[in-house]
């Protein structure tokens, strides 16, 4: 991936592959993916039974491969029976991946270069928002069709999209502003609880929060309000960290935020009115895939606008040298305040979505474990970059799911991988890369 983004002069295989796909615009890939997922719906079942796979590979064949590997590991360590014939599933899963995804994607994306570029150029005549909407619509179509195959994919996709939004909201503070904030699970908890309070308290009958106050069929239309309410409450609580950040930075702010996390968790554990350690369950099932996708897309759009605005540049200035920034008339207080409130808002929104996907929330979900997880996503993907957060959240979620059959060894493999990434790319996979919407959605000109 890295090589394709930064072509070297040596002319290796990656360089040539990169060159081959260079003129493909996003639209081309989207069309390619759409063909892939439709193709999978059509032929996936048949192909997998033809290849002798027990089930249609659900996560690009990764899960199938790791299941076999886990069988081997258990055989080596515990002496569990292992059918060596299952080894054949590994190449078969790869064949599946190639036939269903790689080949059609490559062919269609490459073949559709001209029409896709023409289309993108045509779309560019309209305001950016139209281009973006068309392509996002296409992206949603891809995800929708992909998730239609199995509900396991759907739940995986929902949680991954939420993780993307959550990671990105932390990247504002840890990446763009260069602080080391540990409070994000706390913001997420506040958002999750407050939006649950809104929906469960008003529209659902619950043991803890009493009967529904309102009862009308279009109640789900108020879900955005619930999310915004959750986000705003998280923002409000972020003041507790934002105000000390005027005077203190770095490690001291890190433990202020850590103390904040402990406080929030302890607060929800003790609030009997909010269910205490038992939490709140029975949230209405409103966090559907389109809702999550729209929220995430909107979140990425506003966050990207924020970090590319003057305010965002001021953030980077504060990160690199606060006194110099101050001297250059940057209002550091306003900048820090804005970053914290904004980051907390989106963390709160993602918390609200999480609570409504799981339809359950309890304080134990927002422990230091969650913190380690989201920090890993941010730093693995890359600081100061929207791409980085997307890549980090998606790859860690995918790894976490694909390596699940390895059971305990998963927790050796994932940390080792992260250590290696940190050693060879200390700022993460795709760091400091600006996300220019016009460029991303626009045509690729071949030179």
């Amino acid at each position, binding site marked *: 991936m890295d090589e394709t983004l930064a072509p070297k002069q040596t002319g290796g295989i990656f360089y040539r592959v990169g060159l081959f796909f260079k003129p493909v615009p996003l639209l081309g890939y989207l069309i390619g993916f759409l063909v892939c997922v439709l*193709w999978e719906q059509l032929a996936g*079942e*048949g192909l997998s*039974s033809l290849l002798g796979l027990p089930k249609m590979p659900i996560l690009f064949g990764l899960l199938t491969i790791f299941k076999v590997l886990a069988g081997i590991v258990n055989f080596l360590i515990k002496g569990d029976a292992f059918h060596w014939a299952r080894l054949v599933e590994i190449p078969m899963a790869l064949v599946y991946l190639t036939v269903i995804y790689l080949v059609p994607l490559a062919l269609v994306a490459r073949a559709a270069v001209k029409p896709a570029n023409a289309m993108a150029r045509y779309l560019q005549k309209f305001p950016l928002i139209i281009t973006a909407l068309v392509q996002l619509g296409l992206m949603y179509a891809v995800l929708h069709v992909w998730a239609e195959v199995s509900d*396991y994919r759907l739940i995986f996709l929902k949680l991954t999209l939420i993780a993307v939004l959550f990671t990105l909201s932390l990247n504002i503070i840890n990446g763009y502003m260069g602080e080391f904030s540990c409070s994000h699970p706390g913001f997420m908890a506040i958002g999750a609880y407050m939006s649950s309070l809104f929906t469960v308290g008003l529209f659902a009958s619950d043991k803890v929060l009493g009967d529904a106050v309102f009862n009308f069929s279009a109640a789900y239309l108020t879900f955005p309000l619930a999310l915004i309410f959750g986000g705003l409450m998280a923002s409000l609580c972020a003041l507790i960290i934002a105000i000390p950040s005027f005077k203190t930075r770095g490690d001291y702010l890190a433990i202020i935020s850590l103390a904040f996390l402990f406080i929030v968790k302890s607060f929800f*554990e003790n609030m009997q009115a909010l269910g205490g350690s038992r939490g709140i369950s029975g949230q209405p099932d409103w966090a559907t895939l389109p809702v999550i996708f729209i929220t995430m897309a909107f979140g990425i759009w506003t966050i990207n606008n924020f970090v590319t605005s003057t305010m965002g540049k001021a953030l980077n200035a504060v990160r690199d040298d606060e006194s110099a920034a101050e001297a250059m008339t940057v209002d550091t207080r306003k900048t820090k305040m804005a970053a914290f409130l904004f980051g907390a808002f989106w963390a709160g929104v993602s918390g609200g979505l999480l609570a409504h996907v799981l339809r359950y929330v309890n304080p134990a*979900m927002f422990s230091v*474990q969650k913190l380690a997880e989201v920090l890993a996503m941010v730093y693995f993907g890359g600081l100061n970059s929207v791409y980085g957060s997307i890549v980090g959240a998606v790859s860690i979620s995918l790894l976490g799911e694909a390596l699940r059959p390895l059971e*305990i060894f*998963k927790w050796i493999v994932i940390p080792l991988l992260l250590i290696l990434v940190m050693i060879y790319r200390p700022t993460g996979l795709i760091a400091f890369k600006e996300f220019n919407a016009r460029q991303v959605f626009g045509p690729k000109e071949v030179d």
Partner: protein
Amino acid sequence: MRKFSSGLLLSLVAVIAFTFVAVDAGAADTIKIGFNIPLTGDNPDVGASSKNAAEMYLKKNPKVTVGGKTYALKFFYDDNEYKAESAVKVSTKLITEEGVLGIIGPQSSSQAVPAGEVANNYATPMISPWSTNPNTTLNRPYVFRGCFLDPFQGPVIANFATDELGAKKAAVLYDIAADYPKGLAEFFKEAFEKIHGAGSVVAFESFTTGDKDFSAQMTNIMMTGADVLFVPQYYSEVPLIVRAAKEMGWTKPILGSDSWGGGDLMGLCGDDCKGYYFSTHYAAAGAKGATKTFIDEYTAAYGKTPDDVAALTWDSLGLMVQAIKDTGKLSGDIKADRTKVKDALASIKNFPGITGNMTFTPEGDPKKCAVVVKINDAGKFEFFKSVCPK
């Protein structure tokens, strides 16, 4: 453009080839049961015990006969990392991907409540062996549990403290951040105050999961002059609490709940815990019949006495298999079969489990007896009293 058209042609050929090769995916003569258990995460021993019990069950009963046809049992163990999110993912995966007939687990309420929602939505029978939160089974016809609930166990202990120990004032020390101790502590308080009047629970002290130091709470409990201390905590915390109590000069009885029987309490606590009482599912010392066989075989296979997680998992599995047998005949249509199994589970009467005879209430909670055991001087859990629900 030539490449494009040849690719298109190839794809078309492939489409035609694959869509006609429709193979029956599921092997018809296996029954699949999924396990949603914490093999990693904060409590790996809970997952290990569940898996041990399940593997032992499979070794003993590899085949099930339903309506004259013999099926091979197949178990799928999936790790929920002791996280709510993962439990939801795992349940969805077991139901939609592995196509299991029923699910055992998750064990803890914080995972069983959200995973129960999934199981109920997909109309798949699920038995949580260990979850005590009422919400796990509330309004969920497809979700059952294997253990008795706090509203039953709390009064059992409160009555025991009153009748057998003659306690007038009680103190409680519990973990506020964990679901199970908190619920039980509250029901004990309610029951005890019903007998002795408001304020008879003179100390209601709490701590947070992971705390190791209980000296501050014990100092306060000592001050109140309680006759008995109730500690509804897990086996890993009990030794520390008992020690803190002894170091503060506590000489009166300490009572526990079924969680004391999880894991290796005596190995961790040693002499400190001898002479105390707790309510549980069965008394290991002097067990008879199937219970004794289970304990002996488990001890022989894994080198440790089974904890309550293992015993309850064993029973939940037994219930599930019994229900599958009771359906009379499996149609092969997994969705219809799941509903049949659920109906069979709901109508099971007096299932002879190793943790007592079980009958499900309409809510999906079992009606079963509790026993109070005493930790005798040999460090064995000795039968003291049995209490059955009315």
